[in-house]
C-alpha cells in the first residue's frame, strides 16, 4: 500500500508563499520577503526530493484525491494529484530549477522597487506549474495551464510602466488564449465521446481503439487540437510570436518561464496524451512537421539577432521544436529527456546572460560587448559549459538528448533528420557567435556605459554577487553531467508511462534492426555539424570580423527579411489584428454601442421629456381651463358608465 505522500503540499506550499508575500510583502523587509519565498519554494523542492528518495518503494501510478470539484451525472472532476514517472521528472525539474532561479533572483532583483511583487508572482507561477504537472485530469491541468499563462503575463509586464513591456505581456496572454481555445475544444470532444477527463479513465477507454488511418477521425481531431494548444503555450508555428517579445521581462523570468518550465508544458501535455497521438498517425505527423519546421525557422532568425536575450529566445523556440519533433516521431521519452537537459542549459544560459547584462550595466546589444572573459570569469566559464551543451558536443548534456531525438527521427523519415542536423549546425553557429561576440575580442561598449553601470554606484565591469553565481555553478554542473544518465536508461525509466503493455510501437532503443546507417555514424554526423558551426563562428567573428557585414550586404533583401523575423508580426497584424480592431471600432463601438444602445436610451429620455413638455401645458394655473377639463372628463366618465350599463 503506497503511503500518503501529501502530494497536495507540493503545489500549495508555493501558493502559501505567494499569498503571504502578496498580502503582507509590502510591509516586509527585503530579507523577510526572501525568507518567505525561498522557504516555501524550497519546502516544495525538499518534498520532491523526499519522494525521490523513496521512489523505488512506491507503487505507481499513485493518485491522491483532495476533494470533488464538480459532478454532473456520470461526469466527475476531482481535485486530485497523480504521480508517475513522467510527472515525477517534471516535478523535479520544476522545483529544482525553480528553486535555483529563486535564489538567483534575490541577487538580480535586489535593487528593484517591486521586489516583493516579483517573488509573489514567482511563487504563484510555481503553484500553477506544479498543479499542471501533478494533475490527474485534463481540467485541473487546464487550471495550471491558464494559471502559468497568467503568471507569464504578470511577469513579462513586470515593469508595467514601460509600454513595450505591457504590450509584450498582453501579446503573450492573447496568443496563449488562442491556443487555449483549441485545447478547450479538444477537452469538449473528450468529454462528449469518453465521458471523462481523468487521465486513467480516458486512456483506458482509448487503449482498445485501433489507430485511425483514413481521414480525420475523432482521435486525430483531438490530437490536432491539443497540438494547437501546445503550439500556443510552447511557442511553435504559428503561435510562437509572443516568445521573443517576452524578453521584456526580467531575465530570471525568461530563464524560469520561457526556457525551463512554462514553455515545456506543451511538450508535457503532448507526452501525457501519447495514447491519443499513437492512434492518430496524421496528428503525430503534424506534430513532427510543426516541430521540425519551427526548429529550422527559429534557428535561421537566431543567426541574425544582436540582442543577447533575443538570440536565446529564438534558440528556445528552436529547441522546443526539437522536443516536438521527438514526440512526433514517437520518441516521447526522448522529448522529455531533451526537456530536462534543455531546462538545465537554457536556464543557465539565461541566468548567465543576466549576469553579463548586470556586469555591463544594463546593455543587451552584443555588438557593444566583447572581451568580457577576463573580467567576469565565473560567468564566462558557466556560460561556456551551457554553450557547449546546447551545441551538442560530447560529453555535455545536450549531446545525449539531441542525438537520441535525431536518431529516432532518422528511423522515421530521413528528411526530419536532415533538417534536424542542419538546424543543429545553425544552433551551434549562432550560440558560438554569441559566445565569441560577448566574451572575446575587444570591449566595444564605450567607457561611459561601463562606468555609469546603471546607477549602481560602483563603476566598472564586475562579477555578480555570490547569490547569483551559486545557481550558475550548480546549473553548469548539471549541464555537464545531466545527460550522463543516457537515453536508454532514461527511456527505461519512463517506459511504464509510454510503453505500459507494449501494444503500439516496439521500435524502442532495444531493437534498431534497421538497414542503413548505424547509430554511431549518425552521431558522428551530428558532432561534425556542431564542430562546423563552431569553426564557422570562429572564422566570422574572431578571425575576420568584417566578413559578416559583407555577407549580410551581399544577401541583401533576404538578410533583411530574416533580420526582421520574416515580417511575421507585421503579417499577423495586417491579417488578424487590424481587421479585428477596425471591425470593433466601426461596428461594435460606433454602430452598436453608440448608435443602438446609447441612442435608444437617449431617445427614450428625450421622448419622456418631450411628452411631459407637451402635457405640462395642462397645468396652466388658469382655473377656468381646469373647469373645462373637469366637464369633459365627467362627460367621458358618464359615457363610459352608460356604455357599460347597456352592455
Amino acid at each position, binding site marked *: 500500500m503506497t503511503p500518503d505522500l501529501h502530494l497536495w503540499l507540493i503545489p500549495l506550499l508555493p501558493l502559501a508563499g505567494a499569498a503571504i508575500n502578496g498580502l503582507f510583502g509590502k510591509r516586509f523587509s527585503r530579507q523577510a520577503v526572501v525568507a518567505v519565498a525561498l522557504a516555501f519554494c524550497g519546502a516544495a523542492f525538499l518534498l520532491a526530493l523526499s519522494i525521490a528518495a523513496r521512489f523505488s518503494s512506491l507503487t505507481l501510478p499513485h493518485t491522491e484525491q483532495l476533494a470533488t470539484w464538480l459532478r454532473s451525472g456520470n461526469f466527475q472532476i476531482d481535485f486530485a494529484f497523480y504521480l508517475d514517472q513522467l510527472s515525477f521528472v517534471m516535478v523535479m525539474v520544476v522545483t529544482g530549477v525553480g528553486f535555483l532561479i529563486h535564489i538567483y533572483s534575490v541577487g538580480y532583483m535586489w535593487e528593484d522597487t517591486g521586489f516583493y511583487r516579483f517573488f509573489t508572482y514567482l511563487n504563484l507561477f510555481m503553484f500553477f506549474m506544479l498543479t499542471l504537472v501533478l494533475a490527474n485530469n485534463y481540467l485541473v491541468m487546464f487550471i495550471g495551464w491558464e494559471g502559468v499563462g497568467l503568471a507569464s503575463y504578470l511577469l513579462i509586464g513586470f515593469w508595467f510602466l514601460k509600454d513595450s513591456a505591457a504590450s509584450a505581456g498582453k501579446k503573450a496572454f492573447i496568443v496563449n488564449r488562442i491556443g487555449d481555445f483549441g485545447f478547450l475544444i479538444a477537452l469538449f470532444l473528450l468529454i462528449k465521446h469518453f465521458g471523462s477527463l481523468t487521465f486513467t479513465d480516458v486512456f483506458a477507454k482509448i487503449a482498445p481503439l485501433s489507430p485511425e488511418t483514413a481521414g480525420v477521425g475523432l482521435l486525430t481531431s483531438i490530437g490536432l487540437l491539443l497540438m494547437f494548444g501546445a503550439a500556443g503555450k510552447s511557442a511553435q508555428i504559428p503561435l510562437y510570436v509572443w516568445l521573443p517579445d517576452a524578453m521584456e521581462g526580467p531575465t530570471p523570468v525568461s530563464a524560469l518561464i520561457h526556457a525551463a518550465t512554462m514553455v515545456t508544458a506543451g511538450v508535457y501535455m503532448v507526452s501525457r496524451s501519447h495514447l491519443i497521438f499513437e492512434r492518430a498517425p496524421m496528428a503525430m505527423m503534424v506534430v513532427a512537421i510543426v516541430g521540425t519546421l519551427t526548429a529550422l525557422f527559429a534557428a535561421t532568425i537566431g543567426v541574425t539577432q544582436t540582442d543577447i536575450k533575443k538570440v536565446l529566445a529564438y534558440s528556445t523556440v528552436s529547441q522546443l521544436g526539437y522536443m516536438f519533433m521527438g514526440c512526433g516521431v514517437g520518441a516521447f521519452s526522448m522529448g522529455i529527456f531533451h526537456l530536462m537537459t534543455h531546462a538545465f542549459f537554457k536556464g543557465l544560459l539565461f541566468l548567465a546572460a543576466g549576469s553579463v547584462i548586470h556586469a555591463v550595466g544594463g546593455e543587451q546589444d552584443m555588438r557593444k560587448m566583447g572581451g568580457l572573459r577576463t573580467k567576469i570569469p565565473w560567468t564566462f566559464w558557466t556560460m561556456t559549459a551551457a554553450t557547449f551543451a546546447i551545441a551538442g558536443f560530447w560529453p555535455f548534456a545536450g549531446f545525449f538528448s539531441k542525438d537520441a531525438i535525431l536518431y529516432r527521427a532518422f528511423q522515421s523519415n530521413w528528411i526530419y533528420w536532415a533538417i534536424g542536423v542542419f538546424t543543429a549546425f545553425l544552433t551551434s553557429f549562432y550560440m558560438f557567435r554569441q559566445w565569441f561576440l560577448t566574451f572575446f575580442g575587444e570591449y566595444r561598449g564605450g567607457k561611459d556605459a561601463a562606468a555609469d553601470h546603471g546607477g549602481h554606484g560602483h563603476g566598472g565591469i564586475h562579477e555578480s554577487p555570490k547569490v547569483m553565481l551559486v545557481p550558475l555553478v550548480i546549473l553548469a554542473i548539471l549541464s555537464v553531467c545531466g545527460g550522463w544518465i543516457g537515453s536508454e536508461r532514461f527511456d527505461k525509466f519512463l517506459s511504464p508511462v509510454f510503453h505500459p503493455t507494449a501494444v503500439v510501437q516496439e521500435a524502442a532503443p532495444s531493437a534498431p534492426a534497421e538497414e542503413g546507417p548505424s547509430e554511431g555514424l549518425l552521431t558522428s554526423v551530428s558532432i561534425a555539424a556542431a564542430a562546423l558551426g563552431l569553426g564557422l563562428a570562429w572564422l566570422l567573428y574572431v578571425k575576420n570580423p568584417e566578413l559578416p557585414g559583407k555577407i549580410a550586404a551581399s544577401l541583401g533583401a533576404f538578410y533583411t527579411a530574416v533580420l526582421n523575423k520574416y515580417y511575421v508580426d507585421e503579417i499577423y497584424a495586417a491579417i488578424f489584428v487590424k481587421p479585428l480592431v477596425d471591425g470593433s471600432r466601426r461596428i461594435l463601438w460606433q454602430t452598436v454601442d453608440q448608435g443602438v444602445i446609447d441612442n435608444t436610451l437617449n431617445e427614450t429620455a428625450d421622448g419622456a421629456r418631450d411628452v411631459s413638455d407637451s402635457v*405640462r401645458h395642462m*397645468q*396652466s*394655473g*388658469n*382655473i*377656468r381651463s381646469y373647469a*373645462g377639463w373637469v*366637464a369633459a372628463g365627467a362627460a367621458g366618465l358618464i359615457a363610459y358608465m352608460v356604455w357599460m350599463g347597456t352592455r
Partner: protein
Amino acid sequence: MVPLSYYLVLGGILFACGITGFLIKRNLITIFMSIELMLNGVNLSFVAFAAQWRALSGQVFVFFVMVVAAAEAAVGLAIIIAVYRNRETLNVDRVNLLKL
C-alpha cells in the same frame, strides 16, 4: 298627471345651466352659485324618483345634500373672502399664482 320624464327634463336643464355657468362666468361668487344650481337640479331628480317609487330615502338623501351644500357654501365663501383679501379681485382669471 305629469309624467315623470317632465320633472327629469327640468332637472336636467337646471343641471346643464349650472355647468354652463361654471364654465363661462368670471366672478368667483357667480361660479359658486352655478354649483348650487347644479345641486338643485340633482335634488329635483331625487325627489321625482322618490315620488315615483314611493321611497322616502330619496327625500332623506335630498336632506343630506342640502346639509352638505350648506357646509360647502360656508367654507367656500370664507375662502373667497380670503382670496379677495389677498388678490383684491374676484375675477377667476386673476387667481393664477399656480401658473407654470
